[in-house]
């Protein structure tokens, strides 16, 4: 073990005697300058493209901003405008619906798949590679491909498959009732593999002693899964749950490319609304309204996560 030794006290020359011990000169001699050189990329990139824009977002939500005249403060007007927009509540409802469906479709499937996969003894790599493959496909390609699969005619790909078992044809994206489930189905397909891999990694950490202890008590396989496997996955299950909520409440690509928010605004989500406020009008958008809405979304998500972690803190400790 090397213990850190304090550097020998510097010989204080008479010239700097009497001043404070740390002067810019001693700081530079001690390597402070080269440290700063190494931090320069971080400071520049984060400063210009992260910290200042975050501050500017807060500022802009209270301002009227356009690309021509200087910004003026308008108080809470942006927030009032957004909250008065009837489309907002449609978007909130749709986003909640998307998140709920994504939870129903997407939360149990990766867990079941991962638990089964962890018991596979041969070709384990093949299983995880196949499960992960959809994650690797560029999302835009996936959406455009599925858009074709969702063709509403009887010779659409999915309708042909359904036709072989005597079902359909389903109108998929063209019906306001089935459009959102269709979006969620594709989003789940695209994301499930990533969650499977996270669960598989967590499963390798499950202590096998507990299985043996359970077997001495003659526990069945189901009881072993319920009382040993799942409790040990609790931490990661709690995290993927909140990550999924936070992720799905910011869904953009699927509604933007599949339906553009239609039919009849049945797939307009909050992010789509933010995009429309800011960028749909090529002459310059309602930047104030867009940032006000994005800040509200961020605050709601932040509060939600804080409450969630507070509630689950007591039972996430394993």
């Amino acid at each position: 073990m090397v213990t850190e030794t304090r550097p020998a006290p510097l010989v204080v020359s008479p010239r700097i005697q009497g001043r404070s011990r740390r002067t810019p000169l001693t700081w530079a001699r001690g390597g402070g300058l080269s440290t700063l050189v190494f931090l320069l990329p971080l400071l520049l990139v984060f400063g210009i493209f992260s910290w200042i824009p975050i501050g500017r977002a807060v500022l802009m939500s209270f301002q009227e901003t356009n690309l021509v005249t200087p910004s003026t403060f308008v108080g809470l007007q942006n927030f009032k405008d957004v909250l008065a927009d009837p489309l907002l509540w449609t978007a909130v409802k749709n986003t909640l619906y998307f998140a709920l469906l994504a939870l129903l479709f997407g939360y149990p499937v990766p867990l079941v798949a991962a638990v089964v996969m962890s018991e596979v003894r041969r070709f384990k790599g093949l299983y995880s590679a196949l499960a992960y493959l959809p994650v690797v496909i560029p999302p835009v390609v996936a959406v455009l491909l599925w858009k074709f699969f969702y063709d509403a005619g009887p010779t659409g790909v999915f309708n042909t498959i359904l036709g072989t078992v005597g079902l359909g044809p389903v109108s998929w994206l063209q019906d306001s009732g089935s459009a959102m489930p269709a979006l969620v189905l594709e989003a789940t397909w695209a994301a499930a593999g990533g969650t499977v891999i996270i669960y598989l990694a967590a499963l390798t950490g499950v202590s096998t002693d507990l299985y043996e202890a359970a077997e001495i008590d003659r526990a069945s396989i189901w009881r072993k899964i319920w009382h040993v496997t799942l409790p040990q996955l609790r931490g990661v299950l709690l995290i993927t749950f909140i990550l999924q909520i936070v992720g799905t409440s910011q869904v953009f690509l699927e509604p933007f490319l599949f339906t553009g928010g239609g039919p009849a605004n049945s797939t307009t989500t909050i992010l789509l609304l933010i995009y429309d406020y800011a960028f749909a009008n090529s002459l310059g958008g309602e930047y104030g309204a867009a940032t006000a809405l994005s800040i509200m979304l961020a605050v709601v998500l932040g509060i939600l996560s804080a409450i969630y972690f507070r509630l689950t803190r007591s039972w996430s400790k394993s």
Partner: protein
Amino acid sequence: MSRGILSGSDWRRPRIRRTALGVHGVLLLALFAVGLGPMLWLAKAAVTPTQDTLRAPLALWPNGIDWANLSTAWSRVEIDKYFLNTVILAGGSWFVQLLVATTAGFALSVLRPRYGKLLTGVVLATLFVPSVVLLVPLYLTVVDPPLLKASLINSFWAVWLPAGANAFNILIVQRFFANLPREVFEAARVDGAGPFRLFWSVVLPMSRPILGVVSVFAVIAAWKDFLWPLLVLPDPDLQPLSVRLPALQKFVELDVFLAALAISTVIPVALFLVFQRLFLKSGALGGAVKG
């Protein structure tokens, strides 16, 4: 011996064994259908004439294979150009991300200035800000950037530079650097190595695994990115595949369009097949660190 939920004696009982193998088989079939199925269909459709794909989407080449789709997509629809743009965007983002993450990780974990903890906190705090908050102010920053006179709209820098502001990269690189043995740094210092030599000749060569992980994240994220390049690269000649493909759909024939989709998928899938272990490890790490 490694074991899972099923014990050795469970595996020896014929009923359990049959059920387990049955479930595994069903899962494998399902994974083939769901994971590989759409890609195989795309590969087939890429070389099938439009009419066949429309009339009988599941039939295998009822009227022969049309290889010309691929070359039409590549040269006439100029997929080659958009492909090159994607590669340039991914390469630049990769470089900026590695530069920022390694230099910052080195400064914060190895050189450890007094204000390091505070700075780390300010960097990691940005992890909690959803990216949507940044969308509009970042766009306005790119339209009228500080320190520069010209707008960055229609410049690759508008994609490259913001990509570097990735707190997740800093987090994993910093953690890795902090776990490197400090004895080695002390030895290098005694041998007269300054901080730059220490960074380039000692720390970076010891960090290949984490640099691989960051590289995979960077390239894949750049390849997937859609909304940001759509906003800052309005000039079609500069757009990457992800931005250009939805627009092409409107004026390109279906068979050629599907060929273009297939070409866009080849590189990420090939990268995955070659660096499978790294991808899966990164994926698992992503989950572990996000917690």
